[in-house]
C-alpha cells in the first residue's frame, strides 16, 4: 500500500510544504519565497518569515492534496545544509508535527533531495547532476554509496553572482530572469575572466569585471549577454569534465538557475556530445520546495532510515557526501 509523506523545506529564503505518495505522485507542492525589498537574504528575517507563514503553507499543501492529519504517514524536513536560523524554524515545525501526529520523522539532505526529485521526474537512474541555485553550484554524481561532489564553486554560487550583478545594475532580486531577457537583445560579446580549475570554477573575478564593463559604458544587454555566456561556458566545461570522467550517460540540470534557457541549451549540447540523455527539471520541482523533501523522505523511510526527535538536531554544514545513500543499489 502506498504511504503519504509531508515534506517541509526551509533551508534559505523559501519555505515550502509538499505532499507525495510512495508510488511517486506529487499531490501538492506549495511554497512561499521571502523576498526582501532590497539586499540579499537576512537569515533571521527569513526564519521569521518561515515561522509566520509556515502553518498556512502546510495547511494549503494538505488542502490541495485533499488529505487531513490522519492521512499523513511520515513527516520529512530539510535538515541541512542551510542557514542556521531557517533550519531551526523548519525543524521545530517538523518535530512538532511528527509528535502531534505520532508519525516517524525523517531528516533529509537538501542537495540530495534536489537530485532525487529530479530522478523521479526524469526517470534517470544514475545521472551527473548540475545543481545551480542562489547558494549552490555543484556537479554531483553517485559513486560508492554516496552522492559525491565532483566539482563546485571555489567562491560564490552562480545564482548569487547573477543576483549581485543584477543589484549592481539596478535590478530587483532575483535578477536571473531579467538578465536572461536583457541578454537576448545583445549585439556584442565582451571578454570576461574565465576561471576553471579542474572540475571547480570561480565566479568572483568575473563578477568584478562585469561590474566594470557596465561602469565603462557597455550596454546592459551586452553586459548581461557576456556574463551569461562566460558563466555558463565555465559551468558547461566542468559538467563536461565530470561526464567524461565518470562516463555516466545522463545529465540532470536542477536548482533555481535551471530555469535559464540559454544554460539549458548549452548543457543539452554537452550531453549530446557525450551521447548522454539530458533533462532539465521543471520549474516547480527545480527550486527549493517541499515535494523533493517528501519524496526523499519516502526513499529513506523505505530503506529503514529512522530519526528520533531527540537526535534530530539541524546540520547547517551537512555535506552532500556525508549522507549514506542507503536506498540505492550498486
Amino acid at each position, binding site marked *: 500500500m502506498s504511504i503519504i509523506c509531508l515534506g517541509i523545506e526551509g533551508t534559505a529564503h523559501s519555505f515550502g510544504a509538499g505532499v507525495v505518495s510512495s508510488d511517486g505522485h506529487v499531490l501538492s507542492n506549495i511554497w512561499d519565497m521571502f523576498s526582501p525589498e532590497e539586499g540579499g537574504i537576512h537569515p533571521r528575517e527569513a526564519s521569521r518569515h518561515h515561522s509566520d507563514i509556515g502553518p498556512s503553507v502546510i495547511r494549503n499543501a494538505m488542502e490541495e492534496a485533499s488529505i487531513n492529519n490522519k492521512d499523513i504517514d511520515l513527516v520529512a524536513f530539510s535538515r*541541512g*545544509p*542551510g542557514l542556521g536560523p531557517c533550519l531551526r524554524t523548519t525543524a521545530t515545525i517538523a518535530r512538532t508535527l511528527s509528535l502531534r501526529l505520532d508519525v516517524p520523522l525523517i531528516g533529509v539532505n537538501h542537495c540530495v533531495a534536489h537530485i532525487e526529485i529530479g530522478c523521479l521526474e526524469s526517470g534517470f537512474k544514475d545521472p551527473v547532476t548540475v545543481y545551480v541555485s542562489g*547558494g*549552490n553550484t555543484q556537479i554531483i*554524481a553517485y*559513486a*560508492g554509496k*554516496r552522492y*559525491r*561532489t*565532483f566539482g*563546485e*564553486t*571555489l*567562491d560564490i554560487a552562480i545564482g548569487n553572482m547573477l543576483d549581485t550583478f543584477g543589484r549592481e545594475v539596478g535590478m530587483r532580486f532575483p535578477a536571473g530572469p531579467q538578465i536572461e531577457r536583457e541578454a537576448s537583445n545583445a549585439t556584442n*560579446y565582451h*571578454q570576461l575572466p*574565465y576561471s*576553471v*580549475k*579542474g*572540475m*571547480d570554477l570561480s565566479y568572483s573575478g568575473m563578477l568584478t569585471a562585469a561590474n566594470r564593463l557596465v561602469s565603462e559604458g557597455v550596454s546592459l544587454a551586452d553586459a548581461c549577454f557576456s556574463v551569461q*555566456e*562566460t558563466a555558463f*561556458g565555465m559551468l*558547461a*566545461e566542468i559538467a*563536461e*569534465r565530470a*561526464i*567524461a*570522467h565518470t562516463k555516466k550517460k545522463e545529465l540532470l540540470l536542477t536548482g533555481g538557475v535551471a530555469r535559464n534557457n540559454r544554460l539549458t*541549451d*548549452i548543457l*543539452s*549540447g*554537452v550531453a549530446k*556530445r*557525450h551521447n548522454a540523455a539530458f533533462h532539465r527539471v521543471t520549474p516547480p520541482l527545480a527550486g527549493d520546495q517541499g515535494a523533493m523533501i517528501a519524496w526523499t523522505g519516502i526513499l529513506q523511510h523505505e530503506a529503514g532510515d529512522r530519526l528520533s526527535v531527540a537526535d534530530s538536531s539541524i546540520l*547547517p*554544514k551537512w*555535506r552532500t*557526501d556525508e549522507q549514506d545513500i542507503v536506498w540505492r543499489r550498486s
Partner: protein
Amino acid sequence: MEPWNIGAESIIYRLEQWGRIILLKHRPQKPYLLKDIDEFLRTSRTSRECKMLTVARNLGVPTPMVYWIDVHNHSIAMECLQGKQLKQLVAELAADRLQKITREFGKLIGLLHRGGMVHGDPTTSNVIVNPRGNIWLVDFGLAEMNATVEMKGVDLHLMRRAFETTHWDFEAILWSAALDGYRTIHAEETEQVLSRVEEIRERGRYH
C-alpha cells in the same frame, strides 16, 4: 581516424608515423559555446599546453615530448607514453607500491609548485605509470605560471578531491602519501600552501 579517447576538451588519436606511435590531441569545436569563447579557449589552451609541457620538464617533471603543434588547428602531436593511468591502477596495486607511486605524484606536484607552476587538473587520470613504476604527468591545458599560495592550495585541493570522488576506499592512504611526497620538495611556501588547502576545503561549502 578512430578516436582513442574523447575527453572533456579534446579528442585523442593514436597514429603511427616514422615507425613510432604518436598521440594527436585535438581540441574540437564546441557548437554549444559562444564562438568567441570557444575559439579563445581552444587556441590559448593548445599553445599553453605545449609551452607548459616543456616548462614542467625543465622543472624536473617527466612529461611527454611534443613533436609538433598546430595552433591554427588546435592540435598537438606528442609522444605516446607506454603505461597506464594511475586511476586504473589504484585498485589493483599492492599498498606499498601504490604509496610509492602516489608519493612520487605528490613530489612532482611539489616540483611544479616550487617552480611557480600549478598543474590545474591533477587527477589520477592525468598520471601515467609504466610497468617499472616510472611516472609522468600529462594534460597541461589548465596549467598556469606565476602561481600564488592560493592557486597552489587549489591545486592540492583538486588532487585531494579526485582521491575522494574516485578512490573513496583509498582516499586516506593516497592523500597522506601525496602529502609526504609534496613535503620532500622544500619550498618557501610549502607550509602556507598546506594550511591553505584546509581553508579552501571549508570555503566551497554552504555558509
